[in-house]
C-alpha cells in the first residue's frame, strides 16, 4: 500500500516538475536566454529617448536590444547593445546605427549595413549613432508649405481688396473712363467743332469703343467661367479639402497613439498620407502662384 | 507509557503507530521500521492487524499495539497506567503478564499503576498502594 502510494506521488511530482521545468526552459530558450550574446558599444551626445531594453532592428527585424546606458568621463553617453549569436553577423565594420524616433510608439535603434562582405565590427570599437526624428521631420516638411499658403492668402486678400476698394486701381480706371466717355459723348460736336475734322471725332469715338471692349474682356477674364478669380476660388477650395484631410490625418494620429502606442503599421500608412497631402498642397500653392501676379506688382495692367 | 490518556493516532495504521517512534527518533527507514513492527506482531500472532486503524482494533489488539509502541523507545521503561481500563474484558493479569513476557528482551523495567481495588486481579494481596 505504502509502496503504491510512494510510486504514485513520485510519478506525479516528477511528471509535473518536468512539465514545469520544460515549459520554463522552452520559454527561456524562445526568449533567447541561453544563446551567447555579443556586445557592441555605441556613443551618442544625448540619451534622450534611449532606454535599456530598447530593440535593435536590422531590416525591420529585431536582432538585439540595448543592454546598458552609461556616461563616460567626457560626458558622452555610451550605449551597450546586446546581439545574440546568429544575428551578430549583420553588424559589420561599415554598419551605421541610427536612433529612430517615430511619431507614435517607442524609439528603436536601427542598424543599416550596405556591404555585408566587410569585416565584422570589433567589440572594442565605439560607433556614433545618428538620430532620425520622425515628428520633427514631418513638422519641418509641413512648415514651408504652411508659410507659402499664408503668403498666397495674403496675396489674394490684397487683390480682392483692391477690386472691392472704391479707391483701388481698377475702380479708379473704370471711373475715369466712364467720366471721360460721358464727357466725350456730350461734347462730340464740340470736338468736331474744335478740330473741324469729323475723322478726328470718329477716331476718338473708336478709341473709346475699344476701351469699352477691353473692359468687357477684362471683366470676362476676371469673372468669366474660365476667369482668374473662379480658378483661384477652385484652387482655394481644393486647398481647404486637402487641409481638412490633413486635419483628419492628424486626428487619426491622436487616436492611434491613444489606441496602441506602438502600432507602427498604421502609423506608417498615416505618415504616407500626411506626406502626400502636404506634397499636393504644395503643388496647389505653386499653381496659385503661377496664376496670381507677384507681390511686387499688385496692380492689374490694362491694355 | 501505556494509558488511555495516550491513545493511538486514529488516522494512522497500527504498524505506523508503532513504527513512528523509531522513524522519528532514529530516522529508521520505512521498510525497516515496518518489518520490525511485523516481527514484533508475529510474536503475538497478530500480523493481520498491521494495516488496521485504531477504531478497527479489539481491546486486546489495541493494548498490544500500545505496548509495542512503548517498547520502541530506546532503553524503554514501561509504565502501564490502569491496563484494565484499556482491556476491560479481561478478569486477571495473565494476558498482561504474557504480553510482557513475549517482549521481555525489549525493555528494562515495567511498572504497573492501578487502583487498589484491582489488586486481586493481579493476584497480589499486599500490593503497593497507588
Amino acid at each position, binding site marked *: 500500500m505504502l509502496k503504491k*502510494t510512494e510510486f504514485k506521488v513520485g510519478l506525479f511530482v516528477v511528471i509535473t516538475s518536468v512539465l514545469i521545468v520544460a*515549459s520554463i526552459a522552452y520559454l527561456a530558450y524562445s*526568449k533567447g536566454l541561453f544563446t551567447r550574446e555579443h556586445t557592441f558599444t555605441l556613443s551618442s551626445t544625448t540619451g534622450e529617448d534611449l532606454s535599456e531594453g530598447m530593440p535593435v532592428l536590422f531590416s525591420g527585424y529585431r536582432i538585439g536590444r540595448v543592454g546598458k546606458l552609461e556616461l563616460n568621463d567626457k560626458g558622452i553617453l555610451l550605449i551597450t547593445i546586446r546581439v545574440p549569436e546568429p544575428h551578430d553577423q549583420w553588424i559589420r565594420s561599415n554598419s551605421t546605427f541610427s536612433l529612430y524616433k517615430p511619431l507614435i510608439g517607442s524609439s528603436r535603434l536601427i542598424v543599416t549595413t550596405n556591404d555585408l562582405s566587410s569585416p565584422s565590427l570589433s567589440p572594442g570599437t565605439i560607433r556614433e549613432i545618428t538620430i532620425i526624428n520622425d515628428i520633427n521631420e514631418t513638422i519641418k516638411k509641413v512648415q514651408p508649405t504652411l508659410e507659402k499658403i499664408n503668403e498666397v492668402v495674403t496675396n489674394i486678400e490684397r487683390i480682392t481688396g483692391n477690386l472691392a476698394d472704391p479707391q483701388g486701381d481698377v475702380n479708379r480706371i473704370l471711373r475715369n473712363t466712364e467720366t471721360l466717355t460721358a464727357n466725350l459723348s456730350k461734347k462730340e460736336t464740340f470736338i468736331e467743332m474744335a478740330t473741324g475734322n469729323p475723322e478726328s471725332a470718329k477716331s476718338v469715338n473708336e478709341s473709346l469703343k475699344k476701351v469699352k471692349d477691353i473692359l468687357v474682356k477684362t471683366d470676362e477674364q476676371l469673372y468669366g467661367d474660365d476667369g482668374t478669380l473662379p480658378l483661384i476660388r477652385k484652387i482655394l477650395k481644393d486647398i481647404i479639402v486637402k487641409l481638412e484631410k490633413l486635419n483628419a490625418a492628424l486626428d487619426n494620429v491622436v487616436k492611434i497613439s491613444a489606441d496602441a502606442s506602438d502600432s507602427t503599421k498604421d502609423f506608417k500608412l498615416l505618415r504616407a498620407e500626411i506626406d502626400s497631402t502636404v506634397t499636393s498642397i504644395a503643388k496647389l500653392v505653386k499653381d496659385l502662384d503661377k496664376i496670381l501676379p507677384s507681390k511686387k506688382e499688385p496692380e492689374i495692367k490694362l491694355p | 507509557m501505556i494509558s488511555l*490518556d495516550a491513545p493511538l*493516532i486514529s488516522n494512522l495504521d497500527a504498524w505506523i503507530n508503532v513504527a513512528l517512534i523509531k522513524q522519528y527518533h532514529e530516522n529508521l527507514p520505512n521498510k525497516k521500521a515496518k518489518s520490525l513492527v511485523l516481527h514484533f506482531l508475529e510474536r503475538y500472532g497478530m500480523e493481520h492487524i498491521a494495516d488496521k486503524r485504531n477504531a478497527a482494533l479489539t481491546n486486546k489488539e489495541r493494548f498490544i499495539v500500545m505496548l509495542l509502541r512503548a517498547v520502541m523507545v530506546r532503553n524503554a521503561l514501561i509504565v502501564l497506567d490502569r491496563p484494565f481500563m484499556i482491556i476491560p474484558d479481561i478478569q486477571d493479569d495473565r494476558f498482561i503478564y504474557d504480553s510482557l513476557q513475549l517482549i521481555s528482551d525489549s525493555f528494562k523495567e515495567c511498572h504497573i499503576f492501578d487502583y487498589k481495588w484491582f489488586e486481586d486481579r493481579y493476584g497480589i494481596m499486599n500490593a503497593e498502594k497507588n
Partner: protein
Amino acid sequence: MTEFIEKIGKASMNATATFRDILFFAFTILARIFQKKTYNSAMKMVLVNQIYFTSVQILPLFTVLSIILGSLLIGIVLQIIKNLGLAEYLGRILMGLVVTEISPFVTVLLVALRSSSAMNAEIAVMKVNKELRTLDTYNIDVIDYLFVPRIINGVVSVLLLSALFSILALTSGMIFSKLIFGMSFDVYTNVLLKSADIYDIDIYLIKCCIFGFFITLIPIRSGLSASDDLTSIPIAVLQGMVKVFIAIIFIEVLSLILISL
C-alpha cells in the same frame, strides 16, 4: 454608543491578535522547514501521504476540470477579443488571465475546499482525542511531525497543480482555437511566447507557494485552537475556513498590486 465603540475595539484587537498569531506561527514553521533535523523518516512518510491525498487523489477530477475550464475560458476570451478586434492582445490576456490569475485561484479554491477543511478537522479531532498529547508523551514534536509536512504539501500541491492547470488549459485552448477559430498551432504558440514574461512567471510561482503555505497553515492553527470539547470541532473548522478565504483574497490582492508595479 460606548458599547458599540467597545465592540469595534474588541473586534480590532481580536483581528490584530489573530494576524499576529498566524504570522508568529508562520515564522516558527518557516524556521522548522529550513532545519535539517525536521526531515526524518516519519515526517517524510507523512509528507508523501499528504501529497497523495491532496494532489494524486484529486488528479482525475482536476485534469478534467482543467481541460473543460481551460477550453471554456480560452473560447470565451477568443470570442470576445475577436468581436472587439483586440486580437493582438490575445497573448497578454491568456497569460495574464488564465495563467497568472485563474489557474492559481481555481487550484487554491479546490485544494482549500478539499484539503484545508480536512486538515482543519483532522487537527481539531486530534486535539480533542488527546492524540497530540500522545505525540508529546513520546517526545514527538507536533510541528515537525504533523504541521511541517502538511504545509510543505500545501506549497508543493498548489504549485504543481496550478502549473498543471495552466499547461492543460493552454494546451486544450490551443486545440480549441484550432478547431473552432482555425488558428494554427504556430500562431497560438508565438502569441503566447511573445506575451510570456519570466518576471510574471516568477511572481506566479511565488504566489502559488504563498497560497499553498497559508491555506494549510491557517486551518492547522485553527484546528489547534479547538478545546477538549467535541463541539469545538465544527467551530474550529468554520473559523479556520473563513480565515482561509480571507487569506486567499488578501494574497490575490497583494499579488495584483505587485504585478502592476
